[in-house]
């Protein structure tokens, strides 16, 4: 990574090192959100629609897990994946896969908690009608998830925002290896500590642009949702 160029120059010139870092960041965080959704949406929907003893406690804990500190998640996953840890056999430490795992752990509670809230609110609205139409339990879940899809996508984008912005988890389990597990946030941390501020600033600009795009997407989706579903 060359230093001394101005931040904007780096961004605009399409520097391949910069591009590789951005690409890895997006790949890791998007994959993590995907897995987190595959876990979180069903869990959230299930929690919204079932009643059991201790349900209130589970909801409170799930909401609290939204605030899991990334470094703590990183440490926990690190201990699991280290060669001397229980899952050491898989040899996943210091790889992008480990980063995906850590971010999935971080983001899944967010998606689950937001899904639960969304589905529960919608169920309050739909309950009488779906019961009157004699809709079976599995079909109810699909209907609620489909009808709430715009809100759920917004929840996914919130999860992605969290993943893309964090550095604590992925720097621990990824090792910030040059050309292999270095993402925008870990690179910013590194370049700042090396004193190569123009590059760090350049990366920061790209990261902020991505965050803005995500938020614009979320806004656009909410608008579309309102237009389609009223």
């Amino acid at each position, binding site marked *: 990574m060359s230093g001394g160029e101005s931040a904007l120059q780096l961004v605009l010139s399409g520097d391949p090192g910069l591009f590789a870092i951005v690409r890895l960041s997006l790949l890791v965080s998007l994959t993590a959100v*995907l897995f987190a959704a595959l876990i979180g949406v069903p869990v959230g929907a299930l929690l919204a629609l079932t009643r059991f003893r201790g349900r209130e406690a589970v909801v409170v804990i799930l909401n609290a897990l939204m605030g899991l500190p990334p470094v703590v998640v990183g440490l926990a996953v690190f201990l699991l994946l*280290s060669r001397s840890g229980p899952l050491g056999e898989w040899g996943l430490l210091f*790889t992008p896969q480990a980063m*995906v795992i850590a971010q999935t752990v971080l983001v899944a509670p967010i998606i689950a908690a937001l899904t639960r809230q969304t589905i529960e609110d919608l169920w309050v609205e739909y309950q009488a009608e779906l019961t009157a139409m004699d809709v079976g339990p599995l079909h109810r879940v699909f209907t609620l998830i489909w009808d709430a899809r715009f809100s759920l996508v917004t929840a996914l984008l919130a999860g992605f925002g969290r993943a893309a912005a964090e550095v604590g988890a992925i720097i621990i389990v990824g*090792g910030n290896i040059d050309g292999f597990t270095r993402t925008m946030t870990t690179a910013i941390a590194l370049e700042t500590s090396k*004193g190569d*501020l123009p590059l760090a600033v350049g990366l920061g600009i790209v990261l902020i642009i991505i965050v803005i795009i995500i938020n614009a997407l979320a806004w656009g989706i909410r608008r579309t949702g309102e237009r389609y579903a009223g």
Partner: protein
Amino acid sequence: MFNRRMLIAAVAAAAVLSGGPVLAQYKSIVVSSTTSTQDSGLFGHILPLFKQKTGIDVKVIAQGTGQALDTGRRGDADVVFVHAKSAEEKFLAEGQGVKRYPVMYNDFVLIGPKSDPAGVKGMKDITKALQMIKDKQAPFISRGDRSGTHLAELALWNKNAGIDIEKDKGPWYKSIGQGMGAALNTASASNAYVLSDRGTWISFKNKGDLAIAVEGDKLLFNQYGVMLVNPEKHPNVKKDLGQQFIDWLVSPEGQKAIANYKINGEQLFYPNADDHSA
């Protein structure tokens, strides 16, 4: 509609998770090394040459020496490449490493503010300089991260200057627990003294008001060594590929690559694999 989307998602995820290059011939090793070697840019220079010759991808985890050796102890690295001889020899004595090879050396320099509050600029005696810093209670930044640099700094205080730094430190001595770059940044921001390896100092881009205060003392000599993590303790260690890396580092070719690494015409590391007493 749901089933189709979920299927595509699952396939994509599996593709990513199976991860890494799909080529059967992909060769790589994990080397745990120090932040000073990384921050100086040495790896960026020599690793591509090694890859070109052998096709082996070297993945470097940069930490403090203490952490780097611990990573080796956990079996999370194939090779360790650090600069604290006593810690390395302890590593060997534990049976964690196979053999230690000296690779290169550079030196430490005492960095300080141009305003020189302790009055040590230009001195050649690091021991006396540290004593003056303590006497004047001039601000001093310590890496505090069990790195080779940190261990060297502690040895200079305790062994050479006769100061029990743990007992005698005051608010002027700040231990930050981070790498060389972060320590230099902190020193720059708080006009403090800091012990740095020359390599990181030369390549550091945020020098601000700092300059070299003391250099050249024999005590500031800094030796780097490399070891293969013991495959008998950690069967997953890639011992053939790891040994190839070590052999290349100490070979004339590798040694030349190290010597050729310069910033602004200044050489950072001096190869000395042939000095078996190092």
